[in-house]
């Protein structure tokens, strides 16, 4: 399938996003009231995909 350069994000970037998402979840996994995880994930994707 032809890639669209306007919207395509490379594999390495996706791997970084996954790693950062998992790390953010790991940090909050054991908390009674994990707050703000969605905001953190949104922020990290904004940082990775400019």
């Amino acid at each position, binding site marked *: 399938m032809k890639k669209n350069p306007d919207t395509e994000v490379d594999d390495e970037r*996706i791997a970084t*996003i*996954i790693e950062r998402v998992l*790390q953010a*979840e790991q940090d909050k996994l*054991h908390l009674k009231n994990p707050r703000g995880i*969605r905001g953190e*994930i949104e922020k990290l*994707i904004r940082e990775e*995909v400019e």
Partner: protein
Amino acid sequence: MEFDILKIKNFRQYYSGQSVEFSQDDEENVTVIHGANGAGKSALRNTFLWLFYNEVDLPQPKHIANERAMAQADVGDRIRVEVELEFDHEERHYWTERWAEYEKQANDDLDGELVDEGAHVQYRDVDGKTVTPENPNTSLERFIPERLSHLFFFHGEEIDQLSREDNKNKIRDAIRNLMGLEILERSIRHLEWVQKNEFGEEMEEYGSEELTEYIASLDGKQEKLAEREDRKEDIQQSVVETKSELESVKQRLRELEGTRELQQERDDLEEREEQLRDEIDEINDSIRETCSEDGYLVFSMPAVQKTAEALEEKRKKGEIPSEIKERFVDDRLEMGVCICGRDLDVSTEPYQNVKNWKKKAGTNDLDQAATNITSRLRGIAGSRSELFDEIEGDLGERRERLDEINEIAERLDEISEQISEKEKEDVKELERRRGTLEERITNLNQDKKRVENEIDRIEDQISEIESNIEEAREEEEKSKKARRRYLAAQRAREELEAKFESYQDQVREQVDKKVKDIFGEIISKNYWTEIGEDYSLDVFKEVGGRSELVSAVPTSTGERQVASLAFIGALTYLTREQYRSNQDNVYFQGGVYPMVMDAPFGYLGTEYQRGVSQQIPTLADQVVVLVTEPQWEAEVKEHLERTAGKQYYLEYHDPDEEEEIEYEYTEIRVEE
């Protein structure tokens, strides 16, 4: 996590300060704590729950402070309860503490009122640096998840419940949490939310077809502008050509004998007309400038008049300027003598009468302000009059020049008529041609003006469209960025979903196998365990060549308890192996957990007790076992004593048996 030392002060029946040092020996990794029923084994297990989660799993959970300490305190005194735990965790050495202060409210108050509480966490990292986390409660929660605390700080007499049908959620939670599935699940769920609710909505907000429409519109306008500019150039060229031809005609009229003087006069008049028109332009500029600078005087006059009238009214009433000044009254009061010579003593009527004049007196500032305003108002009225005079003067001069232009026009008509009446045919033709050319130039100039206006309008429209295009481009860029983020979140989620699908079966199989192994080591009979698709932990037995579920049978408490122990042991083993393997796996990092087992031999028969006591040291790196003396018999004692690095006794002081004490308490004694 490896426990080092636990210090308890005034927690439940632990009076004053007590401590337990845990065995950290690799070979003798078990710490045994002996205690009779009611001696405080459950309270000791609960010190961990209180420290990590600020919760207790005991009757009267609000009753934390030691009764004996409370009884010895005076009303108003505070009893401090403390639990401190030192341990090693992930290459850091931790000092943790939870404390609470209870104030005695009455002589018979043995609970006290909670008046202060807190927690403290500090650690030393691998570089020897000491760090104090800002939020100790959050730090404490992170070590072992509270919802899994029943696995790591468990009560043996209740542990069999894990393998009951209604507890499969607990089994599932434990596997998912400790083996990394929960992180994957949560990541997938949160990525989906962010993808759809944040980036999806952003795409909708900024995405539109406007940019294409604007660009098409701009192309159209630019084409139109080019067309108008060409038209303007053509007109200008025609004007130049027509003026040139006109000049030739005029030159010819200057050369001809019969028209020379008339044409000369016409040239002079036209030159004068042009000069007058220039002067009119200058006068118009002057009027515009005057209006721009002083035009406000015309509109402010009603307010000026109203203010002047108000001040005049006050003047008529004698309010301004004031007849008496405040300073004058003050001076007389200070001197103590009225202008009539009467003495003005404070608190006398004459003094008060003179003082009352202050209310009517004006200040110099007020009078000065009123005078200034009146003067400015007069100035404004004067400026307004000058403004009208100036404009009128300009209008008069303009009128004079327009009259002269009209006179010139009349004379030019006459000249044209005189030339046209000449007998010579070529003169008539020249004059007719001159008229036609003059008219054409006028028409061409009007056309040029109209085209110029059109060009201005199109340029304004182009400027607006360009601004819209710039805005739309910015929005389109935002929309593209939102789309990239949307797709990135989607791809990340899809990859995690694929990982989850393949990993969850693998995890269940891995745990199932390890539970089977441990269970098989403890129960050698024809029993086995299975973790089902629905995460139920079941025990089966082979009866007559077929499998029979035995964990549902009420009498199978022993088998269920062993299955639960095997399950906890399997998870502890697998997470420890993962941690030590140093595999780079963010969702399953593993961990080393100790096990605190309160009465692990509760319902077990002798045969199972032997198996369990053999297996206990292998289940975790560090094991703390709380046992009663009847449980510490033959098989158990024989096996656990070999791996027990430290042993303690809970010495319970019972007021029914010791006359000198009034309240029960427990002391922790080290086995000598």
